[in-house]
């Protein structure tokens, strides 16, 4: 009986203590692609308090406020890179359209309760805005067939991106040995000075070990985490020395490239890519 009272009291005290504004979750994407949109969610628990204000800041600038006592409650301050879709914004969510490079930054949600305490909570997250390449990686310099001891040389280039992409060569789905890889090189784009084209060269002497089932499979993979990954793959058969050089070079016959144009959703992308790969193969 006594213990139960204590428990109740503890609960009541706990209730009192807890009876202050609480920020439950700040749902802000860390990366978004340029030109895209973003939903910023700020979930709070008033815990019985009354909301005085909800403010969104990008860096130290307030661009959105929700003050229930104001009429209208929502107030928007035009801010570079921050295009609020008022229609889709509320006391918990702000929708941003047409993300640009300027949109990158810290986004802070600050919630204040009413007088007298004006209990205030805030939390912020950084949103990165990426420029993704227009196409996938493009490979040049490969032959259709290679004989043993042939020198295999290929260049893989990716159109301008920001940040710089990560290119990687795979031989027979295995990352190429470091001594086979030269580069990467970067070439700043004329039209987007903030972006750069990425180039990575592969060069090695073919041995019999490279030929699996009589063929070498080469792949150039481009990654801009976490939004983008595409690769270009080609298969090259072993040419026999008897009929040496009788086969005309057919560069593109056995090669194809896959484009992963799917944006954003990592989880989706990770699911889809293997499926497509299987289907295509």
């Amino acid at each position, binding site marked *: 009986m006594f213990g139960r009272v204590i428990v109740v009291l503890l609960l009541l005290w706990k209730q009192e203590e807890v009876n202050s504004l609480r920020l439950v979750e700040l749902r802000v994407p860390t990366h978004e692609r340029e030109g895209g949109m973003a939903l910023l969610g700020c979930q709070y628990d008033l815990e019985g308090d009354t909301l005085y*204000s909800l*403010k969104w*800041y990008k*860096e*130290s*600038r*307030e*661009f959105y*406020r929700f003050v229930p*006592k104001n009429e209208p409650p929502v107030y928007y*301050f035009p801010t570079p890179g921050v295009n609020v879709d008022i229609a889709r914004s509320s006391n918990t969510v702000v929708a941003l359209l047409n993300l640009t490079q300027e949109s990158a930054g*810290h986004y*802070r949600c600050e919630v*204040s309760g009413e*007088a*007298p*305490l*004006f*209990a*205030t*909570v*805030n*939390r*912020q997250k950084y949103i990165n805005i990426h420029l993704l390449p227009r196409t996938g990686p493009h490979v040049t310099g490969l032959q259709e067939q290679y004989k043993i001891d042939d020198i295999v040389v290929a260049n893989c280039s990716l159109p301008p991106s920001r940040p710089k992409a990560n290119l990687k060569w795979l031989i027979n789905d295995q990352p190429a040995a470091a001594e086979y890889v030269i580069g990467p090189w970067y070439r700043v784009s004329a039209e987007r000075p903030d972006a750069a084209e990425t180039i990575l060269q592969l060069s090695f002497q073919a041995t019999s070990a490279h030929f699996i089932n009589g063929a070498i499979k080469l792949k150039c993979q481009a990654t801009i985490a976490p939004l983008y990954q595409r690769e270009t793959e080609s298969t090259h058969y072993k040419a026999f020395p008897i009929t040496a050089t009788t086969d005309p070079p057919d560069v593109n016959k056995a090669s194809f490239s896959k484009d992963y144009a799917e944006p954003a959703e990592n989880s989706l992308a990770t699911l889809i890519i293997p499926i497509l790969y299987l289907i295509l193969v």
Partner: protein
Amino acid sequence: MSCLILKRVPTSDVQGVLGKKASLPCDIQPLHSDDDVVMVLWFKESDGDQPLYSYDIRGRSMNQPKLWSSPTVFGNRAFFRGSATPAVLMVDNVLASDAGVYRCRVDFKNSPTRNLKVNFTVIIPPNRPTIFDAKRRDRTKLVEPYNEGSNVLLICEVEGGRPRPKVIWYLENDLVDDSYEQRADGITVNTLTFPNVGRQHLNQRLLCQASNTNLAQPETKVLILDINLKPITVNILTKEKQVSADKRYEVECKTTGSRPEAYVTWWKNNRQLKRMAKNFSENNETLSVLSLVPSVEDDGKYLTCRAENKHIQDSAIEDKWRLNVHYVPIVDLKMGSNLNPDEIKEGDDVYFECTVKANPKTHRLVWFHGNTEIFHNDAAGIILSAQSLVLQSVTRAAAGDYTCMAANSEGKGTSNPVTLLVRYAPVCAERRDGELFGALKQETVSLHCSVDANPALVSFHWTFNNSGEQTELPPKLYSSNGHTSTLNYTPTTDMEYGTLACYGENAVGQQKVPCLFQLVAAGRPFHLQNCSVANQSIDSLNVECVENFDGGLPQTFLMELLELPTLTVRYNVSTNRTPPYFEIRGLPPGVSYRIDLYAVNAKGRSDVTTIETVTLKGQAKFTGEGNSLGMSPVLASIAAMSALLATAVCGVLAVLYRRHAARHRHLPAKHAPLSEAMYVERAPHCPTPVKQEVESRASSTEPRERGERTARGALLHTTDPREDDADPDIIPSLYERRPVSNGYMSLQRPPSTGKITKLNGDDVRSEPDGGAYYTDYRKKDYRIPLTSSYHSLGRVNKGVNACSPSSATGVTSSLTAHRLRPEVVTTSHRVQESCI
């Protein structure tokens, strides 16, 4: 996360001092004029996101904001002044825990919220500095002044302070040392070395200041420099040009500059004068007043007033005053160093040296012999020079005390007396030699010869001289004692009357001029002198006279009144008194008398001295002769009886006395040379002794005389003097006992010429042969200086004794001899003494 939150938020740094007020600024001014502030919230980073202060003017004017302050943070210590520019959050009584990063959030009506950051640091002031000296004593609690010129080392220590304070030394307002050290133990130290602290630093404030912010007053500790200062000046104020010895002077000395008050001491040369000064101090001045009585020895000495600060070594300064002490000359007299003062004899040259110590100087010496000033006299051999007196060829008159005297403005100084002893051969002590002594034959007379001599040890010898033959007397007749020799001489024959000479001899030599004694045979007394009526009334009469030489025998005096014109003796009065004084009463008035006066001794009556006419006043009364005659015998007999009685008694006493007493006679003989000269001159005129019997006028006297004579004769076996006048009776002489009376000093004026004429002319009694001499002698004698004095014991000789019996030629008569002498009054007390 908080750090991120505040990224890019404008930040200002604000300091507050512990315990003081602080202002946290927050600009709430809207960017646009059409905008308004609605809310200001203050946050502190370390306290999470909860506001600690709110300023709510939603729906309110700015004058009536709704304020709230978190009790767990500032509580009522904070107040937001929104009207200030910039608006500030005022915080009282800042705590150390108030430090931190604050954020103010300003909500505007139309513009974006403004977040401002304030980095608030709380300054903890340091503790109050402590000032130590080199011995680590708290200097501000120490009462120990620095000495002028010393070095001051002070350590200022400051504990605590955040940030660590600057510790700086100031002298008044000037920075003197800003080099401080922050020690690991949290103490900040600045050590000040301040060399040669001086007078100008007295009471200046040395301040150690510890400060770590401009927002609060620095912590300071002040040390007021207390400095012992050396005296700067010392002056003897009353440096008189001269001072007089033995007078009291107040000498003042003033010193300034010493702190604490100077210690003033006085020095005379190198000796300190203690307990003679009084000191008075005021401010940093000290006046010392010395009570100085300069002595003679102080002349030329330096009086020093020394002032020093006892706390500071070698701080003494001095002022000196050379004492010019004036004093009465100090005169020292010495006999010449090569002279032996015990060996100076007459004829020697003597000199004295007088040393004078004087300030101011003296220019002249005055010399004294006894009380008489000595003057330079070349003729007398007295030579005065600057410092000495020379006496050439001294005589014994030069003996005595000599002094020299010097004078200056301070007074006269007389030297010690120096006695000059002049050795000389004996001379007669009193110039009475040649004195007349009467002696009967076989009568022994004692003659005292007293000489002056130096040395006084004198041997004597006597000579006898009559008629030019000089014989040495046998030594058994005289005895000598020092400078006196007594001769007991008994003439037995006429030839043994004469001149006795006494010669003394001492180490210097023999007496040149002997002391002379004239021994004559005893005779009648000389007549009375200067008789006059001293007092006269209706019935009484007093007559006084001066006695004369008694003839060598005791004398009495007789007065007879002879009634005029019958010349009948009416009254007879006798007296032993010396000088004679007669008194008679009960006389009938209106009667005139002639008064006859006599001296009487065993040899007879002297010449008469007459006072011619004395008339008693009142109605003349005629008395018949018979009457007067009838009266006269009664009176005469009474007088005669009394005279006889007296004479008898005296005679008996005299004889008795003579047997026991030694004879002493000191008789002056000042005019011995003169009398000798006269003696020589007169000698041819001196006739052979002529007996001149003077008749007794009064028959009544004769029985008396005879009776006396009889009595004497019985006693002394004398013959009647009337029978043999030239052969005087040997009558005991009492003269030797006669003291020198004042009478002997006074020369009696001789009687007027008229009176003498009368005496000679009218009076039958005047000696026809001696009168001229008498008169002549008197006239001459009158010219003798008054200062001369002598004592005559002459005896009236009536021709018989006119020449000395001892004189072989008989030219020298005693009468002549005594008449050549000045007339002298003998004031003998013989009678009284012998009667006693």
